[in-house]
């Protein structure tokens, strides 16, 4: 209850860009502080919350995630968020592991995903260094999420598992294999890279998401 009070204090007066409120789903997985700061640099007070009412009331939702897939999924289940997230109607942006958990499955910890994106997540082969760590390009960009972003723009990535292509692929990246570095299904968006850590161009992606 005290958590809720603190959060509501944070949530007023804003959380806004053009009046939109942003909630970052806080389920214990990953570096959400960086995402919150990235929105702050855009002039938006994004709220951290695991409260279903607050999440449902938000205009835009960020689904973050760093770490190991099966333990992240366990935390989602414990809080009931695994049921809530697929029901969301507003724009949702999964970042890194957040995107992977929105897929059908991931080889990491042999985990079943939330099944929004019709993609399976696999481990990079040993022909490349794993994790992929650093700046790589995104190309074949297909969504308003990438408005103003040029082809072959660099984004920052840190991951050992990748999403296979499916009809929902909206950006592609090469690392040993050509894989989906972004996905979209209706109101659900996912990016494998970290827009919050990808300099000015990454910031543009977050700004585009706010404008969806």
């Amino acid at each position, binding site marked *: 209850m005290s958590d809720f009070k603190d959060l509501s204090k944070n949530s007023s007066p804003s959380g806004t860009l053009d009046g939109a409120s942003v909630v970052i789903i806080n389920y214990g997985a990953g*570096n959400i*502080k*960086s995402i919150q*700061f*990235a929105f*702050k*640099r855009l002039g938006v007070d994004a709220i951290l919350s695991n409260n279903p009412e607050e999440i449902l009331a938000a205009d835009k939702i960020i689904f973050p995630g*760093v*770490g*190991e897939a099966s333990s992240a999924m366990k935390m989602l289940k414990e809080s009931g968020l695994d049921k809530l997230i697929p029901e969301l109607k507003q724009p949702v942006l999964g970042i890194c592991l957040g995107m992977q958990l929105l897929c059908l499955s991931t080889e990491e910890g042999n985990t079943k995903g939330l099944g929004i994106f019709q993609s399976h997540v696999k481990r990079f082969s*040993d022909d490349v*260094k*794993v*994790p*992929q*760590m*650093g*700046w*790589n*390009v995104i190309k074949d960009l297909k969504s308003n999420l990438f408005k103003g972003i040029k082809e072959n723009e*660099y984004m*920052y990535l*840190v*991951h*050992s598992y990748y999403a296979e292509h499916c009809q929902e692929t909206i950006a592609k990246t*090469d*690392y040993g294999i050509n894989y989906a570095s972004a996905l979209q299904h209706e109101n659900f968006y996912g990016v494998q890279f*970290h827009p*919050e*850590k*990808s*300099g*000015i161009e*990454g*910031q543009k992606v977050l700004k585009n998401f706010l404008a969806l």
Partner: protein
Amino acid sequence: MLTKRIIPCLDIKNGRTVKGVNFVDLRDAGDPVELAKQYADYGADELVFLDISATLEGRGTTLEMVLHVAEQVNIPFTVGGGISSVEHVDALLQCGADKVSVNSSAVKRPELINELSNKFGSQCIVVAIDAKEVDGQWKVHLAGGSIPTDVDLFEWAKEVQDRGAGEILFTSMNHDGTKNGFANEALAKLSSELHIPIIASGGAGNVQHFIDTFTEGRSDAALAASVFHFGEIPIPDLKKELKANNIEVRL
């Protein structure tokens, strides 16, 4: 294609940047947050902050600094120096650090690497290794290079990978502060024996040294301090030169 990374390293003491030459003789090189922002604007790919504060107060100040950096800088950064517990790492990550780097404490208690990578994920655990070549043998050193051990560099590097490190930051003490180039032979050996990324550190003096460490040394990233802090090698010029030498970099 994944690019090679250029990483300025800022040594932090009580919230201020300093740089040791051969690990002694500290010089003041400015405010860390301002420096970090400037580096991000100039095209640095990542930043490393090494906390060399000796006191608890100094470490507290560093935590505050981490928060300010995370607030203002939009590229990834690693924090290292004196980290020996899950709680300390948790505090740094909570303040917005992207990765942490452990060194001596991991040699003393290798299970720390397992604990950290299990809790926070390999991707944010960098193991820094300081080593010195004596009579053809690379031996790991502790406490900023001041204490020699019998641990072999290559055996230790393999072990930290197996325990879940996401990346290795290798500093050659023979090269550090000399400005005569990186330890490319040892770096290439690390790269061929391991499957995690290797950051080269120690010895950067000119642009050719960076070209050499990415080609001969097969390094994934190169870290340097004074050549960047004192403007001897501007990062945009360095990256243009690397690109001209067919080395993939982010421009």
